[in-house]
């Protein structure tokens, strides 16, 4: 059974990156982001013995990550509103040119995601992680139909924000 084979280190290796991405979508400040990642990992570690395989491990982990992120936003709402943009997460795997381009795209995407209202941000980050509408509905506690409608709206808003960013960037370059 999947739950019996689960170890924290395996979960960390497989889903650590997804957890870090969730944290970076909800927290700009690097120190507090690290704190949030640790909070999520601690919660995952504590919840693992209760995992019974009802959902995929990824959904299970992302559900905990999102719950912790929402708690974090509730606790630090005022600081979060004042935070300036920070440095993006560097990509250490690609060649320098590709790395620069990837990093630029990642940065723009991350900024656009961070600008979304909380519920839309959750929908978008879960969808970007590759979760189905059913899984997103399970994580957020809303119906599949509701997910479809809201996600479509959130995607449009994200695309619009990215379009604006691209226009600003190309304007600056010109």
């Amino acid at each position: 059974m999947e739950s019996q084979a689960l170890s924290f280190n395996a979960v960390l290796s497989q889903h650590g990156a997804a957890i870090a991405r969730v944290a970076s979508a909800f927290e700009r400040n690097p120190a507090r982001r690290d704190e949030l990642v640790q909070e999520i990992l601690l919660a995952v570690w504590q919840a693992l013995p209760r995992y019974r395989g009802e959902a995929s491990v990824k959904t299970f982990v992302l559900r905990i990550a999102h719950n912790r992120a929402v708690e974090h936003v509730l606790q630090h709402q005022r600081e979060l509103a004042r935070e300036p943009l920070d440095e993006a997460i560097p990509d250490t795997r690609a060649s320098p040119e590709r790395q620069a381009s990837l990093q630029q795209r990642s940065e723009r995407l991350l900024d656009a995601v961070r600008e979304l209202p909380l519920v839309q941000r959750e929908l978008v980050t879960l969808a970007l992680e590759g979760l189905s509408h059913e899984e997103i509905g399970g994580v957020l506690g809303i119906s599949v139909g509701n997910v479809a409608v809201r996600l479509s709206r959130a995607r449009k808003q994200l695309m619009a924000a990215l379009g604006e960013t691209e226009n600003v960037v190309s304007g600056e370059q010109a």
Partner: protein
Amino acid sequence: MTDSNDWLQLATTWQAQAIDLPTLQRSTRWHTLRLYALIGVEIAVVLMVWALAIYWQWFKPLPTLWQLWGWLWAVLAPLLTWFNLRARTGSFRASEDSVRGLLELKKTRAEGTLRTIRFGNAVLPYAIALAWLWNLLAVWLYPPKVLGMAAFSGGLLVTVTLLLWLAFCRHRARRERRTIAEVEQWLQELR
């Protein structure tokens, strides 16, 4: 390019954000170690309290009141530690519930805190009156040699402490009301 292609590209960009996993693992190991160390310290404190209570009981170096005090803490210390550990292990948190469930839990907790604060505010004048009654009674029954401010220090101390507590509660109530408003707005968005 179609919308779905755009979205796929975005998902790829999103998932391509590389994370320094070894650093993350190191940092997690360090946090876990700290957590265990903290649990160890708490258990050590409980054992120390028990040792002290047993020492006071058997060797009686202090009056009986201290022995009772020791036994009271011998019971309270493990209870408090247990509550603390339970709170930290996430048993008081809805980590596996949906975000909606979590938000509703947050709202219920904030409303509960507000109710407690309201109850505290209602009881506060009686607590101050009781403190002064006790102070005046003590002065009347055991009159001090010099009747100065010092004779009323107990009542004054309780009044100042409770007023400071009231100010803190007001601040806390404002924060809880703000939390409820925010959570309600998010719940509205999820409906």
